[in-house]
Every structure is written in structure tokens, then in C-alpha cells.
């Protein structure tokens, strides 16, 4: 469903993504791991057609990533999703439904189902400006699903969510993958990757260093330890030492 072929992206002279190859099949839940600044969000934005690759090509559901056809098949939830503060959650969902041209009666049913699924009935008719982070995330995930996407791309989905909201989101990913949706999820939470993903990809300095299931990765890198140890080893992360930090003496003025 998602095919990334030899993609590079430069920010000025800095290479953010370097000859990246990546495929996510239909029904696969792919966890995209990497340290800060590794190129995860850049790759995701290129897959969603928001950034143009400096080299290489990307297709989504067989269509060029920047085409409107690809956008019809795709849903994207960024790490800091945008909601219109002066709309209610229901009005926002209606807007998305209209944008995708879903037939009115079906749309109303769909919105009702999503409100139930994401447990939003208590707040869905209030303005989004009054929502907590968890409420906002639920509305955004609901809006991402109104058009039955074939591809779901999510950047850091669980940041700031309470356990209940987190559980809803995790179940959503598994459900979507079982329904045949290709799910690409970037995360820093290695436990989530271990718990949910079919495939794990580790990116560092724009290059994909490893790709496979967790057992495959352990075998590939001859590691018996946790994913965290493997991740730190691959990304060159010796544990930082705090010994050099001495107690502060107040400066005289």
C-alpha cells in the first residue's frame, strides 16, 4: 500500500532522509522508530504528500503521494493535530464527511458510530477550544476514519493520552490493521511498538538501519535483550553520564 523507493530529502545542505526504501503492506501495522531528528516526521510528511522528496518516489495505494487520489485513500494524524477551535467536534466531523462526499444518511450514521466508539458523546457538541488533549486526539482519530481509509499514517499517537484514551487508540490500530488497512505509526514508545506492531523499522540519520518483526530483529542483531537495548545499540546511544554535573554555586553580582 505504501511504497517508498530510494527517497531522499534535503533541508538546505542537511540530508534529513537518505535513500530510504520502505514498504507497508495492506493489513500490516508498521512501527517506525528512531531518535529525535532521525527523519521519521519528514518521511511521514512525504508519504502524505505534504513535503516533496528531493529524490526517489513514493506511492500510496498505487498513486503518486502528492495526488488527490492518494489523499482520498489516506488518513493522517500528525503529532500535533489541528482542530478548529470555534467548531464543535460534531461540526468538525461533518466538515470532513462533506469534504469526502459521503452520502448524507450514511454520513450521519457513521458520525454516530464514531462518537460511540471513541466515547465522545459527553463533549462532542462543545467547542473544540474547551477540549483536553485526549478529547482532541479522539476527535482527530474519528475524523481520520470517517472515509474508511486504506492507509492510516500516525505520528506519535500516544503522547499525552490517559490510559483509557491510549487503550482506545491502540485498539483502533489493531482493528484497522485486521480490516486490511496499512497502518504506519511513528513512536518513541518502544513498549507500544513491541505490543502492537507486526513490523518494526528503525531509522537513524535518515537511513533505515533495520526492518523486521521483533524476533527477526533479535536474530538479525544476535540480541537477547529488550527492544530498548537493541535500539540504543543501533542508534549509537551510550547511556549519558550525569557525573560531570556539579552542584551550582550562586553567582555573586
Amino acid at each position: 500500500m505504501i511504497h517508498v523507493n530510494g527517497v531522499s530529502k534535503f533541508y538546505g545542505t542537511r540530508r534529513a532522509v537518505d535513500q530510504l526504501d520502505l514498504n507497508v503492506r495492506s493489513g500490516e501495522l508498521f512501527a517506525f522508530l528512531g531518535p529525535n531528528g532521525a527523519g521519521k516526521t519528514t518521511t511521514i510528511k512525504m508519504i502524505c504528500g505534504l513535503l516533496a522528496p528531493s529524490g526517489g518516489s513514493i506511492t500510496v495505494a498505487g498513486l503518486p503521494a502528492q495526488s488527490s487520489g492518494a489523499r482520498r485513500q489516506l488518513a493522517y494524524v500528525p503529532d500535533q493535530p489541528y482542530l478548529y477551535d470555534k467548531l464543535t467536534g460534531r461540526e468538525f466531523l461533518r466538515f470532513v464527511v462533506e469534504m469526502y462526499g459521503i452520502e448524507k444518511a450514511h454520513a450521519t450514521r457513521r458520525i454516530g458510530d464514531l462518537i460511540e466508539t471513541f466515547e465522545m458523546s459527553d463533549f462532542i457538541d462543545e467547542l473544540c477550544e474547551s477540549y483536553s488533549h485526549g478529547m482532541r486526539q479522539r476527535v482527530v482519530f474519528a475524523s481520520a476514519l470517517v472515509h474508511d481509509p486504506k492507509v492510516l499514517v500516525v505520528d506519535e499517537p500516544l503522547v499525552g493520552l490517559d490510559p483509557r484514551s491510549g487503550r482506545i487508540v491502540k485498539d483502533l490500530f489493531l482493528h484497522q490493521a485486521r480490516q486490511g488497512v496499512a497502518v504506519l505509526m511513528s513512536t518513541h514508545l518502544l513498549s507500544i511498538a513491541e505490543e502492537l506492531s507486526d513490523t518494526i523499522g528503525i531509522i537513524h540519520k535518515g537511513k533505515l538501519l533495520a526492518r523486521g518483526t521483533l524476533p527477526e530483529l533479535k536474530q538479525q542483531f544476535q540480541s537477547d535483550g529488550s527492544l530498548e537495548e537493541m535500539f540504543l545499540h543501533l542508534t549509537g546511544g551510550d547511556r549519558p553520564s550525569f557525573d560531570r554535573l556539579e552542584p551550582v554555586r550562586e553567582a555573586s553580582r
Partner: protein
Amino acid sequence: MSQSAGRQQAIVAFRDLRSSLTRNQLRGVLQGSRLRILLILVFSLIFWGALFAFFYEGFQFLNSFLNATEEVVEYVFGIFFLSLLVMLVISNGIIVYAGMFHAREMEYLLSLPATDDRIFAYKFVEALAFSSWGFVLLGSPLLVAFGITAHAPWFYYILFLLYLLSFVLLAGSLGAMGAFCVANFASHRPRTVLAVLGVILLASLILLVSGVMRAPGELLTRDWLDSVLDRLTFSQNPLLPSRWLSHGLLAAARGEAEPALYYLLVVFSQGAVAYLLVSVMARDLLRRGFSRVQGGRSSRRRRGLYAIDSVFHAMFPFIPHPIRLLILKDLRCFRRDPAQWSQFLIFFGLLGFYFLNIRKLGSGLGNSNPYWSNLVGFLNLAVTALILSTFTTRFIYPLLSLEGRNFWILGLLPLKRESILWGKFAFSAGISLVATEVLVVLSDLMLGLEPLMIGLHIVLIAMLCFGLSAISVGLGAYMPNLREEDPSKIASGFGGTLNLLVSLVFIALMVATVALPCRAYFASMTTNTSGLYAVPYDVFVRWLALAFGLCVVIGVLAVAIPMGMGIRAFRRMEF
């Protein structure tokens, strides 16, 4: 799904989105403070009325004094609308650039299945409304005043609204084209482009004004007017939209419907063509530009210029250390934002240029005449304070709102909250004092004023600096807008507008209180042959002392009241 069906869905979805947003926004405003709504309405009406009175008197003056109404008005309209065209193009360009290529909303909109030109249309309406309300607020009193003076027929008042809307469409589309060009071809240097544009505009303005100031002939005579108009001929170039507007409006005012409609159609059709062109640009360049701007993040290392910090600490040891640190932080942020300091340079560049031309104004009005010299001296003081008030409204008022978003950083420092406000006050008053005192003293020396008046002006401008800074800092803390990241939008909102109005009232009170006894004294000195009561010097000094005392009281109140309100509100504020 067919492409046309998809476009139709997007149109309906965006239309419904806009109407829901507007409805909810209005509902929120109506449910909010009635006093606030009333204040907005009253101040808007006062502002409109004052502009109308100013333009009406101006047209009456042209009518009676120069007796050249039609010709002069054509030039006045030409210059006025040309200036507004330039301002509208630039402001629309900036707003479209920020709204299309930097806004978080765009990331969301571009992930939707709507076509790029449709997304542009949705955002363009917003940009147009935001940048053009001021144009209508400025243009409508001018045109109504002219209509009344020229005894224009009824259809003139309908046509001028259509003219303004068509003109706004044209200017907005041109601005949007500029924004697309910058995003696609200079995405790494948008601020440099803006700064260069600012410098070019300033240079053009200086050339224009110096040309007008150097027009030969005695001031306000027919010869002088002819030579001034001669220097403004460029505004009558037939290719300029401002000229189509002025021609059409003058025809409408004369009751000539046919040419009035003809020029309206010219302006509208050019606006429509410009919009069509920019829509095509949006279709092909919006996504590309967004990618370039978002992909063009700078990773340049910055040098701290820490030597300046040391000099600053050494120069101002009497300012508490934490406040000095806050001032240095604000100075550093200001220095690293070319969009901010280019506007700052334009403000004070204009002011400097004005003062350089005082000699001409002084000699034109009779430099040896103490009445005129003093009048010009107070005019300088008022102009300086007015420009200073726009500076404090644009740059100082938003400071607290911008700080509020990151307040947790300052809030956790071992500082009292009021120290933050006093730091902003010192920052503003310091910059203002340095910039204005030099100009006022220089201009007074050039005008040959006596030491008493120079001293008076020095103290007055200092009090104005303190008062205007306190009003902006205090009201900025009293009515912060923590949701907005763009300082220009904070400044042009309700709080910013109120800040400007309060500043104007403060300036008027301060200048008028001292200027009135001076005017009475110097007028009686120079026109004693006309039978006016001659004010003895000792009486004048007593009046002046009284007026000065009153000014000190007003100045102290202007610092104490807004700062007190701001500090109380800031202490209570939750972030």
C-alpha cells in the same frame, strides 16, 4: 468519483465550514462582555467620524482656498489610492504567505482531498477580509466626505462600495501572487525580501516627499500647487489601478453614470483576471511552495554578541539584575527578527526624514516668526509622540501576549511577576527615549527655539515615552491574547486598537495642555496689532508652570494606572 463532483463537494464543505466558524465566533462575541462590544462600536464610530470630519474639512479647504477642486482631488485620490494599493498588496502578501505556508491549519487542509486552488480560495477570503477592513475604514469616510462636498448623486454612494471591493480583490490577488513567488523562489529568505521591499518603499517615499517639499513657490499658492502636482504626475499613469478608481469615482460624483460604470468594470475585470491568475498559480505552486517553505528550516548557528551584554550591564547597574536580563532577552529576540526591526526602521526612518525637512517647513512658514516656530515645535512633538504610539502599539503591546505562551519559563524563575512587566517597561521606555529625545532636541535647535521651550519639550517627550510605554505594557498585560502567535495580529485586534486610542487621548491631553498657553502667548506677541490681548511674560510663565504641573499629573497617572491594572491582572493570571 468525477473531478467536478469532487470540486463541488469541496466548495460545499468549505462554505459550511466558513459559516459554522463565523456563526460560532459571533455567538462567542455576543455571549462575551457587552461592555467590550459597546467599546468596539463606540471607538469605531468615533474613529470613522474623526476621519470623516478630517476629510470633510480637507475638501472644504481645497474647495474654498485653492479653488482647484476637481484637478487637485484627482491627484489626492490618485496618491491616496496608490498608497493604499501598495499597502494592501504588501499586507495581503504577508498574510497569504503566513496563512498558506506557515499555518498549522494548512498541513491539515493539504491532507484533505480538496484541490489546491479550492484550498487557496478558502484561505484567500480570510486573508482578504483580514487585510482589507482597514482599507474600507479609511476609504469610506474619505469617499463619503467627498460625495457630500461634491454634491454627488445617490448612485455614487453605491458605486464607491463596489469600487472598493473590486479594488481589494485586485490588490489582494497581486499580494497573493507575490507570496507564491516568494514561497517558491525565495523560500529561504522571506524576511530578507520583506526587508528589501521595506527599504525600497522607504526610499521611494523619501524621494517623493523630498520632491514635494522642494517644490518652488510660496507655500499654498497656485504656483506652488502647480509645481507640487507636476511632481505627482506619476500617480496619473493610465496603467495604474488607482487612477481607474479615481477617474471612475470622480465621474460618479459628477453624475456621469456611463464612465463611472466603465471604470468600475475595468477595475473589477482586472481584479477578476488577477484572481484567476493567482488561482492557477495556487493550483500549480501551492503544494510546491508549502513543501519548500516547510523544508527550508534554518539551522544557522547564532552568535550571542555577549560583549554587548557586558556593556549593557556596566552601563545600567542601577536597573535590577533580573530586569536587565529580561531586557537583554527582548533585545536579542528583537534583533533576530528582521520583520520586526525593518518595520522599526521604517517608523523611525520616516520620523528622521520628517525632521530633516523641518528647515524647509520652517523657512516656508517664516523661520523668524516665533509663533510659527513654536507651532512647528509642538507639531514635531505631537508627530513624534504619534509615531511613538504606533511603535508601542505594534511592538510593545504584543510583548506580554507573546511571553504568555512561554510563561512557564519565566514563571519558574526566581522573579516577582511584576519584575517582568517593569522589565518590558524599561525596555520600551529606554528605546523610545533614545530615539525621540535626539530628534526633538535637534529639531528644536534647527527651529531656533529658546532654551525654556527646548527644556520643556525634552521633559514632555520623556513623559510621553514613559506614559506610552506604560499604557502598552499595562494594557498588554491586562488584555493578553495568549492564543495568537503573530504580533501584528495581536496589535490589530481589539486590545491593540484600544491601546492605540488610549495612547492618542494621552498624547492629545499632554500636548494640548502645554501648547495652548504657548499658543496664546506667542500669538499675542506676533499679532498684537490686531487688537489681541497681549499676554505678559510673567503671566505666561505662571500659565506654563500650571500647565506643566498638570502634565506631570497626567504623566504620572498614565504610568500608574495602566501599570497598576497590568500588574494586578498579571499577578492573577493563570497559564
